[in-house]
């Protein structure tokens, strides 16, 4: 039988090990962040890699962003209608959907989609290069692997996500308008005229700033987990998993704090 003291020591030990591990991880991430920021603004700028990544992150995501946004807009219009119709507020669906889309849904859902689609690919890609010594091959040639692999991906995601978020906003509102006017029979003119009455440019700016921040966080987390990969296919799988999970969690957590800050500033 284990003595009580022993059980206590064991628990403290385990807890301590966990704390040390977490701090170590945080330290590694901070030094990675440092390195990426250092190499981001240093020549040579590899524009062709940046544009390749733009093509991958933005262009290749258009279809899925379109699909997600039109259905989000549609269902949101429908649910709002169910809540508002009884109160006689159904003509307010337009501005309600527009504001929530601009401030929250476009950047957050866009971020989640990009984390799943591109974050996963980034981690898997860099992770595979790590285990097959391609990252070492870059380093041996004297090329910084963070600059070569991470910087173009991060820069491209920071630029792409606000663009995708704007597209999400447009198509999402179109979906809402479609349901609102064609299915729920709200007058087309009423629907449209209410929007500028309530929606301000700062709502749109808030969404764009959020999208930029999310783009940075998603890509830096994904590339970090790619570089952390050790040992074969299993390691790549684990890295990809961590990249997506943390990317999504961080988007939702940071969204809360960012909303509080941006509401004060804007």
């Amino acid at each position, binding site marked *: 039988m284990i003595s009580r003291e022993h059980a206590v020591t064991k628990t403290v030990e385990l807890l301590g090990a966990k704390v040390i591990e977490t701090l170590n991880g945080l330290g590694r991430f901070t030094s990675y962040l440092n390195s990426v920021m250092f190499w981001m603004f240093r020549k040579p700028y590899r524009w062709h890699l940046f544009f390749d990544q733009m093509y991958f992150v933005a262009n290749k995501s258009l279809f899925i962003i379109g699909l997600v946004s039109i259905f989000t807009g549609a269902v949101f219009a429908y649910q709002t209608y169910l809540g508002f119709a009884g109160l006689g507020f159904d003509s307010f669906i337009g501005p309600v959907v527009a504001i929530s889309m601009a401030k929250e849904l476009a950047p957050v859902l866009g971020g989640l989609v990009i984390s799943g689609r591109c974050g996963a690919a980034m981690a898997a890609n860099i992770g595979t*290069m790590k285990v097959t010594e391609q990252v*070492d091959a870059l380093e*041996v*040639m*004297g*090329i*910084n692997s963070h600059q070569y692999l991470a910087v173009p991906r991060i820069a491209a995601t920071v630029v792409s996500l606000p663009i995708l978020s704007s597209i999400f906003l447009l198509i999402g509102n179109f979906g809402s308008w479609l349901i609102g006017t064609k299915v729920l029979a709200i007058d087309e003119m009423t629907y449209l005229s209410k929007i500028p009455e309530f929606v301000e440019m700062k709502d749109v700016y808030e969404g764009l700033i959020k999208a930029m921040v999310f783009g940075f966080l998603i890509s830096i987390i994904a590339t970090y987990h790619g570089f952390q990969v050790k040992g074969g296919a299993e390691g790549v799988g684990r890295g990809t998993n961590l990249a997506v999970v943390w990317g999504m969690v961080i988007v939702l957590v940071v969204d809360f704090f960012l909303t509080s800050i941006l509401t004060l500033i804007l």
Partner: protein
Amino acid sequence: MNIRDHDEYAIEFNNLTKVFGEHTVLNDLSFKVHRGKITTILGFSGAGKSTLLKHILGLIKPTSGEVIVLGRDIAELSELRIREFRKKFGMLFQYAALFDSLSTFENIAFPLREFTKLKEIEIQGKVGELMKAVGLAEHSIHKLPSEISGGMRKRVGLARALALEPEIMLYDEPTTGLDPITTKMVNDLIKETAKNNVDKRMTSVIISHDVEATLKISDYVAFLENGQMVEHLPVNEFRKSQNPIIRRFLEL
């Protein structure tokens, strides 16, 4: 930065010690690599061969002692200088480490595009020369690494490593995991590459545990055991070494 005389020796390790945590990987190791020759570093797995290789490239720094490469103390070079300095090296990785999204041509052209201002037509010419030098057929030029055999990949890896005309060629376990015919091909290729570059006094360092190949292609053989060089001899003398560890290794 003072550059020391490196006419005779390309690489010098002076009392090199490397400690990872509580584990001493290299222990007061002293050893010199002859310039313009093929030197193989033999040793059992875990003897510290890879750590030694990483020191040559400046990927890790010594705990104590010094590593002098081409007359320069690696520890004194800044991070940016070391990157610059690494252009003097070519390295062939165990599994070639080709960039799997790039074709044969783009893999070989990669260092040229990154580090030279050559025009496209000049790059094409240079890649053609390199492919010929390592015996790569014309038809493989647009193939991806996944579409060519292991032996071919080694050839592409070697061509890529030679693109910037390195002063030191490093080979990490070049024949591990290859079939006998491909092994012979890679060994011949190493020998051939050294011969082709003898006028430039290119130094070759091979990390290996393939005894047979080592004795065939090397000029010098060093034996690493428990973080120390237990023997370093011209190949003919190494064969006759009476050191019990080496006898055991040779008679496996």
